[in-house]
């Protein structure tokens, strides 16, 4: 996606051709025996105050994308622009001041808080990075806890005393402690109970409009993504298969994989009748040994000879609807 510099500065995050190949080690000296193409050329952008949903099944590389943007992993190719600045190859020292701009909310509320620290101390770690004094930290900590709906008096309690939803709120408060403008939500609700999920979604939505945050919302749950995001990218085996505005993607999906995903989602149907759908055949292939050509060819109902031979390009359809399928037609 060729973009002008002007446009680059207007978006919060732009990712172009992002790649991450994980080495597989074997032998006495642990030589690199193979490479797993976890992320294999991913492009998207997120505007200020907007949400992008990144959807895919397990092992498609969606969480790796989140970690690459956070620079918890070094990309093997491609560029990441944050507010127009290329951050893909900054050293840890150069990255320091930018760290606080991008934060993350994790899936597992049990592993995301340090069990040996009170929740107040966990939040303080962030406030310390911003350089607040001791008194400043205390008042800001109380403000943050209140913002996410936790009683500030509980700051000296340990994480194991809280329920999953409450811990997730604390996790949100910690990521807000450094005043970020982009938050990567890595399946933030999929480990929570159904009645708690809506609380966290509402909290994230409120915070977004209040603090003008941008979200990269990583999830496997299409219902949640369709509710929360402005644009959606569908990932499969390290590739983005389809990328469009939420309305456009859910109204007229162009890629057969998106279509299959949408029809696989169980829907609440109060009439008691069941919509018959033909499920996709087969399983997701191992990323260690992906099929040649289009990554989806092994399971695609519309597969043809060309799909097996050549790598399919990401191409644009009407408006801003991108799809990686040569047979797609609007």
């Amino acid at each position, binding site marked *: 996606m060729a973009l002008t510099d002007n446009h680059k500065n207007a978006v919060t995050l732009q990712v172009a051709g992002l790649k991450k190949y994980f080495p597989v080690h074997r032998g006495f000296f642990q030589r690199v025996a193979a490479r797993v193409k976890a992320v294999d050329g991913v492009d998207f952008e997120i505007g200020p105050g907007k949400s992008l949903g990144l959807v895919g099944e397990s092992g498609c590389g969606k969480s790796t994308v989140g970690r690459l943007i956070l620079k918890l992993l070094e990309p093997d190719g491609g560029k990441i622009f944050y507010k127009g600045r290329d951050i893909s190859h900054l050293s840890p020292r150069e990255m*320091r001041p930018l760290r606080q701009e991008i934060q993350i909310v994790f899936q597992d509320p049990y592993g995301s808080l340090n069990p040996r620290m009170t929740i107040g101390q966990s939040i303080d770690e962030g406030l310390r990075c911003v350089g607040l004094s001791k008194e400043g930290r205390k008042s800001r900590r109380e403000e943050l806890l209140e913002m996410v*709906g936790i009683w500030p008096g509980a700051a000296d309690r340990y994480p194991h005393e809280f329920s999953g939803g409450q811990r997730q709120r604390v996790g949100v408060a910690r990521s807000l402690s450094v005043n970020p403008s982009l938050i990567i939500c890595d399946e933030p609700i999929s480990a929570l109970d159904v009645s708690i999920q809506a609380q966290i979604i509402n909290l994230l939505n409120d915070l977004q409009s209040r603090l003008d945050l941008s979200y990269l919302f990583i999830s496997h749950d299409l219902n949640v993504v369709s509710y929360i995001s402005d644009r959606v990218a569908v990932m499969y085996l390290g590739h983005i298969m389809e990328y469009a505005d939420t309305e456009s993607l859910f109204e007229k999906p162009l890629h057969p994989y998106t279509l299959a995903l949408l029809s696989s989602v169980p829907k609440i149907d109060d009439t008691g009748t069941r919509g018959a759908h033909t499920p996709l055949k087969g399983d997701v292939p191992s990323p260690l040994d992906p099929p040649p050509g289009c990554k989806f060819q092994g399971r695609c109902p519309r597969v043809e000879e060309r799909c097996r031979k050549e790598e399919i390009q990401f191409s644009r359809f009407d408006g801003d609807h991108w799809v990686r399928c040569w047979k797609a037609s609007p």
Partner: protein
Amino acid sequence: MAETLTKNHEILEGPQAPRQSRFVQQFRLFKENRLAVVGLVIFLAFFITAVAGVVLTSGQDPVFNPSLVRLQEKLQPPLSLPNLETLKAHEVPTLGIYLLGTDDLGRDVFARMLQGAWVSLTVGFVAVGIAVIVGIFLGGLAGYYGQEGICYDQILDFLLLLSGIIFFILKWHKLGFGLFTAGIFMMILSFRARRVKQNRFMPGWLHKSAFSFDTLIMRMVDIMLCFPSFFLILTVVALLPASIYNIMIVIGLTSWMGTTRFVRAEFLSLREQDFVSAAKALGLGNFRIIFRHMMPNAVAPVLVSATIGIATAILTEAGLSFLGFGVPPPYATWGNILSDGKRFIFDAPWLTFVPGIAILIVVLCFNLFGEGLKDALNPKLRQE
């Protein structure tokens, strides 16, 4: 927005369950393990004895003199009374009785055991302290920075420097000096080559990673584990001058492998935990992440293995002293009391039984205490 704020105020949440401190829960779990409590009590008693021992048996005129020879009173059984007629005033044992008998030179076994307790304690703690420090350092490095590669040029530098030093020690001064300077020259070269990105100083393959740091440390551990450590200690002790400090250091430097493996495994799993990722994303430095976030979570299993390690170190020291490679006489240790006593095992069995049983009890109590600690620190058991 004000509306949602007030809404939030209404549902501010705190924990449901009553407050439970981690320490109280741990202590309760520990208390449930009767044997562990017995272990702890004996350990404390041993600790007090050892401290008292060093106070009471040292100095110019000790309360209990462990090295006072009374040849006329040799091989007295425990609880026998001294013959006051043949002894000078200062030779009479302080308690007025030979509590644990006397040895072949008429020395008071009780005083000698007191002195030996301190040796066992310090050997145990210092040796394990060294092992734990080395283990945490290497294990932490391997676990946290393990994926950093070591390049061919770095290996080359190191080999040059090392061979230089070896030749120098072997008195081949010219060759050693030459190799050493070549090594330093290479180091400067590779350092510069790394600074400027397009290097003209060296061929590219030298900058390829040969193996990772983790591989290096873990192979070192494997090699160390290949040696039967007791014989390794014996060899080293035979080469070094006999002293209690050498023993401690040698035992410490040959028992760090277990801790290294432990700490590495803990760090590898902690590194993947979300709270460590979160700390990195907040922009915390590596130092703070390692010591404030990872170490407190890794320390519990290390503590457990250290407790059991102390028992092993005490046994090793006793074994060395028994073989005559340990702490040199006249300083008494439980091992050399045992060793001296073995010649009189039929005439004076207390000389072997007293130190033997003492070693047995102390080692057992450390192991029991370690087991109890393991249960108490296990978060899975604590939850329910």
